[in-house]
């Protein structure tokens, strides 16, 4: 089958856009879910995504060093995903407990500033892990180290693998294999990302629509006070929302590591803003809206490269954010309730 070069390029970019869109959608879900229950923008969400990527790297690095990655790659990747997800989830719950709950009644601005503070603390904590470890291990009693040398070097190695200011790389295990469909080459890595993202999003949708906890989340998002009068444990529901939203970001973080290989402590910033744009575009507070917004933003951004110089990609994304905020502040699928809260 032969396609005209223009259509061929368009289809290729479509696949690229779906991949990028999957990342945006997964991260955007966390923004939108938190906005749903707390009516606040969790600006630390991009950094929770980063923590997920680092937890994944730590896991896959350990599995590689004991040779398990070579002997059983599929299970190793699954374990990596689970650890990345849990790491991000626990971080998210902790951030909510320490940074947002104390200021929940203090107004929007306090929560926003607290979120920015949490973002900085997360980034700098991951950056400083090796330094802090070294400082602790250097503690001396008299002229002797507090900890035995072997223990120190072992722990320092672990810490080195976890954080630090230099960029880190995942092992390149996804490879570059793939198949050709209608003249367009699609790598297995892309298939993994898009399919996995869609499955996770479907699962999330079902969870929110058809389970008890999902119903509680929707109730809290509708009206916190009434929900609590109806017997919903509001604090637990908010924690659960953070847990699930952060888990999605953690999965996205591990996927970025596996697919793009390089991760950095400041990697959460730009995707965080892009995902926030997606959430706003789809209607912040609306779960299908965040998915839709993510894919639309990914596709528009990638397709813009066909007509504009590639460096204007970010400009296109943020023009979309501005236009949405000016002309359609409640987004594509957003409802009036959130407009009122804005």
């Amino acid at each position: 089958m032969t396609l005209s070069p223009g259509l061929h390029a368009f289809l290729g970019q479509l696949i690229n856009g779906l991949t990028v869109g999957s990342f945006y959608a997964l991260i955007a879900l966390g923004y939108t879910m938190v906005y749903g229950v707390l009516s606040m923008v969790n600006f630390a969400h991009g950094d929770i995504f980063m923590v997920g990527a680092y937890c994944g790297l730590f896991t896959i690095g350990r599995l590689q060093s004991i040779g398990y990655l070579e002997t059983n790659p599929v299970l190793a990747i699954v374990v990596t995903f689970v650890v990345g997800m849990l790491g991000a989830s626990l971080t998210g719950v902790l951030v909510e407990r320490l940074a947002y709950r104390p200021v929940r009644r203090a107004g929007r601005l306090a929560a926003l500033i607290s979120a920015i503070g949490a973002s900085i603390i997360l980034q700098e904590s991951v950056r400083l892990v090796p330094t802090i470890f070294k400082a602790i291990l250097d503690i001396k009693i008299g002229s002797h180290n507090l900890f035995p040398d072997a223990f120190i070097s072992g722990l320092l190695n672990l810490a080195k693998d976890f954080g630090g200011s230099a960029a880190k790389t995942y092992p390149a295990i996804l490879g570059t294999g793939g198949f050709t469909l209608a003249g367009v080459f699609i790598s297995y890595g892309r298939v993994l990302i898009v399919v996995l993202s869609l499955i996770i999003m479907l699962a999330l949708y079902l969870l929110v629509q058809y389970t008890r906890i999902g119903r509680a989340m929707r109730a809290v998002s509708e009206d916190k006070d009434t929900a609590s009068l109806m017997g919903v444990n509001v604090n637990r529901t908010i924690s659960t929302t953070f847990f699930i939203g952060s888990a999605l970001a953690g999965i996205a973080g591990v996927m970025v590591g596996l697919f793009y290989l390089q991760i950095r402590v400041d990697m959460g910033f730009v995707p965080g803003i892009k995902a926030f744009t997606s959430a706003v575009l789809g209607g912040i507070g609306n779960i299908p809206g965040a998915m839709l917004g993510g894919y639309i933003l990914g596709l528009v951004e990638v397709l813009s490269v066909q007509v504009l110089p590639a460096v204007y990609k970010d400009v296109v994304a943020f023009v979309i954010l501005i236009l949405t905020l000016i002309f359609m502040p409640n987004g594509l699928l957003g409802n009036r309730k959130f407009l009122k809260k804005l």
Partner: protein
Amino acid sequence: MKSRLILTLFVALTLLVSGCSPAATAAPATGVLPTDTPGSTSASTSIPADPWGNIVIPPGQSVKVGLSSALAGGYAVYGTDMLNGVDLAIEKFGGSLHGWTLTSEGQDDGCEGAAGVTVAEQFSADPNILGVIGPMCSGSIVPAEDIYAANHVVMITPSGTAVAVTAQGYETVFRTVPNDDLQAQVTVDYLTKELGLTSIAIIDDQSIYGEGLATAVKQKFEAAGGTVTSFEGINRGESDYSAVVSTSMTGSPQGVYFGGMDAEGMKLVVQFRAANFSGVFFGPDGIKSQPSFADAAGAAAEGAYMTFGAVGGAAGYDDFLAAFKAKFGGDPVAYGPGSYDATLILLQAADRVATVDANGNLVIGRKALADSIRATPFTGVTGHLEFDQSGDLKVVSISVFQVKGGIITPLKEYNFGQ
């Protein structure tokens, strides 16, 4: 209403665009301290006055070698390698200069212009700084060298390859690497004559370094009769370059040239191979890194080519390599040997011109130091290094490397200026 909307958009876009181009935000050279000239006020009369003033270090203080490079973020593999080179050189020199303790001070400039300027101001204001190794990237050097020159601080970059680095005519600027005009020439020569390519796509990272190289390669490749199918820029630090990979492949080029650094080069080669591109991938010295390019990209990097101002072969390189491995537990990446040589050039020149005044201070004339560096040929582990008036090397060689079996391996050496 409409005009207000347009204004809002315009302001937002301006903010975005200016935020995206670090080169445009280089701080002006304000707030720089004046050159310290205590030599003229001190009681001593035996110390000759230096037209640029003296570096005066009281007894008991340390003499510092500054290093401006990327010590954090995506390019830290290169910057850390440079710091290792500086430290090893100080150790090799004996750790002291006329009895004053030598130390290194590495500052992170992130391979960016604005941060490079900040580091330059910091080093220039520090009375204990003897001279500076770096900055690592041309994008930092070009704005920072104004400040070093205004304060008469000698800087020797082992890695800044852009033509612009030595084009401003400063007497304080030196580099131990060939410039990018030669690097582009070698690249095009290899692409057309050895690999027989007639069409390439070019991508650059919009930095002074990457864009300069990409433009030079484009001109020379077209002058050699080749076709450049596309010429695109990317933003540094992003993860996904698949869109630009697809547009670059639209013209079915036989090869891709990337002007930029390891972090983006690694992601590009992976994403080109993941898009089933089987042509040549060619890059500059910025991607010649075993850990952060060849190892990081894994199988995707196999067969990729890169140019680099040649290292090795020189007498003493094997001893250097053994000492480097023993101290840091691994091979040098790229500019470790160059930083080692640059540091020794600085220290040996300081050793030649340093005197001790009547108060027991170590005194080094700033102009005397720069002149001594320029006047004295040096043979180091990267070869014979002799500077011309502009601070460029008189004799240089550039080699083409290829990733073979996962290892960056030299293929062919080109010599210039003999």
